[in-house]
């Protein structure tokens, strides 16, 4: 019965259930994380020492494998010395949800630990600027080229074979080259994001342009529209909602190139923050920073989605998809 009701291909979900399912999509993984973190019987392969007892090499706050701790405990029992005490714990690289939640707040309020360090908000802002410029430059070239390739077959034939080849080259492979050409600061980082985004962008935009209903172009032709007019008044507005959707997806791709890009030259931005915090074993901060990227990405996408609905009131697909 349940299977029959819920698993029908392309049957829409009622609005209430849609909301509940959306919340669940976050609650489920976080719940799993809670389970692993707070239920000692689940995993917890290590012991957090609370009282070293007679064992000389133990210190409070130290973590050790359960097997080793059990050995030390057995030794102490057999020699009738003070017993070491500890609680089951997870490895340091898996902090509990509440620690990460705290870090999400405290990371913003904690001063950088080194002199050349940056506050979290400074790191994030730097990363956002890198993304913006990378995506902006990529779009400046990729969108017009994609539209032209989609609209005019000769342009497509002239550009697409090379782009198809180039897009398989991993963007980070150009890291050393980018540093040699553009220096060690923001230049090579922006270049990596451009290289990672641009080639996909041209192909995706060209494809979207090709999907424009040919009948609309024909109608415009019979109404007397000609070349540049056709492009400006029919092709571009006709693909605009789809182009907007493409850009949203591509922006997500740009974010995925961010960390690799920021490792090139001098490490900067959120990546610098993450590597610094990991060095100090502040893994809660690492998770917090990674979560920030996710929240920023999701937030931007949702904002763009909402804006899209206002920008393109005629777009049926947008309404259907929401």
């Amino acid at each position, binding site marked *: 019965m349940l299977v029959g009701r819920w698993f029908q291909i392309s049957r829409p979900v009622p609005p209430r259930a849609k909301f509940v399912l959306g919340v669940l999509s976050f609650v489920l993984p976080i719940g799993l994380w809670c389970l692993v973190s707070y239920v000692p019987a689940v995993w917890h392969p290590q012991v957090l020492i609370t009282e070293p007892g007679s064992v000389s090499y133990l210190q409070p706050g130290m973590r050790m494998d359960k097997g080793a701790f059990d050995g030390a405990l057995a030794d102490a029992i057999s020699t009738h010395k003070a017993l070491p005490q500890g609680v089951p714990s997870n490895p340091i690289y898996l902090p509990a949800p509440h620690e990460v939640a705290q870090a999400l707040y405290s990371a913003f309020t904690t001063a950088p630990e080194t002199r050349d360090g940056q506050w979290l908000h400074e790191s994030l802002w730097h990363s956002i600027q890198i993304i913006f410029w990378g995506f902006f430059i990529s779009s400046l070239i990729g969108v017009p080229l994609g539209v032209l390739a989609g609209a005019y077959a000769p342009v497509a034939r002239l550009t697409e074979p090379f782009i198809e080849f180039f897009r398989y080259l991993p963007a980070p492979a150009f890291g050393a080259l980018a540093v040699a050409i553009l220096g060690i600061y923001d230049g090579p980082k922006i270049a990596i994001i451009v290289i990672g985004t641009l080639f996909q962008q041209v192909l995706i935009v060209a494809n979207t342009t090709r999907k424009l209903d040919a009948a609309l172009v024909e109608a415009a032709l019979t109404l007397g529209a000609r070349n540049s007019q056709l492009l400006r008044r029919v092709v571009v507005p*006709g693909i605009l909602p789809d182009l907007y959707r493409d850009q949203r997806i591509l922006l997500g791709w740009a974010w995925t190139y961010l960390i690799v890009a920021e490792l090139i030259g001098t490490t900067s931005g959120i990546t610098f923050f993450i590597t610094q915090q990991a060095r100090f074993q502040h893994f809660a901060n690492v998770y917090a920073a990674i979560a920030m990227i996710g929240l920023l990405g999701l937030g931007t996408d949702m904002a763009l989605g909402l804006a899209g609905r206002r920008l393109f009131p005629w777009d049926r697909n947008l309404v259907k998809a929401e």
Partner: protein
Amino acid sequence: MNQMLPPAQRLPSYLEQSETVRARFDRLKAREVILEVRHLEKTFRQGARETVALHDIVFSTHRREFLCIIGPSGCGKSTLARIIAGLDERTGGEVLLAGNPVNGPGPDRGMVFQGYTLFPWLTVKKNVMFGPEANGHSRLEAERQAMQWLALVGLEKFAEAYPHQLSGGMKQRVAIVRALANQPRILLMDEPFGALDAQTRCRMQAHLLEIWRQIDITIIFITHDLEEAIFLADRILVLSAHPGQVQELIEVPVSRPRSAEQLISPEFLATKARLEELIYQAKHDSEDSYPPMIRLADVNDNVD
């Protein structure tokens, strides 16, 4: 339809015309020729195979004539309309519009498609303004014209609506005035009412005739619906399939103005009988007849 007549009544010949109808045709033919199609050929080439879609099409229309083009599916009637519109290229022959050869699409030939093809990102008013603006009219002038045209079809109230907010019939009315706003010499309509339900379709036919009466326009209307063709047309060009050829150019003997009552008049039925003969006869000869049915239901379980 035929069963509705008393059995003894014989249909007149579709060639018989009443005095007034003949006088109308005389006046029609006295007007100048707007469109002339001379020995038009269209061959599709697919690899080594050649398919003749249209062969030696010859006809002409006079100013303010309503010409219907009818034929079985695959007779190339849509291709013919698209060649006249300039959207497809011909492989032979000539198309002359008011004496000038047609090469490529142009604002002098408006077209209405079966799928409404309104620009979904433009409001109704801006859709109608598209043609005048594309042809160099100022925004203000285009807007003034658009509102006049919308008034003609009673859609001023929907000027600011988007196409997706309109019903099928309304969309098609907008598509018609969008084409007319360019003041073309001829209006090509490729099965424009095919996607509409029967009632809307009837209303749109009457509405189209009303528009046609009011303005100086020659209409070439593609359809596969016999009654629609007779109801609308002055003359009907009947095409045959494989290859598409002119079978006959029929002068419709039904008087104007047309009304729904004429659908059972003797002239109407006679014309319809002739069209059926031309189109279904041809179809009967071709191979697409249905296979005999095998009974799959229980022998005693009858529906009649």
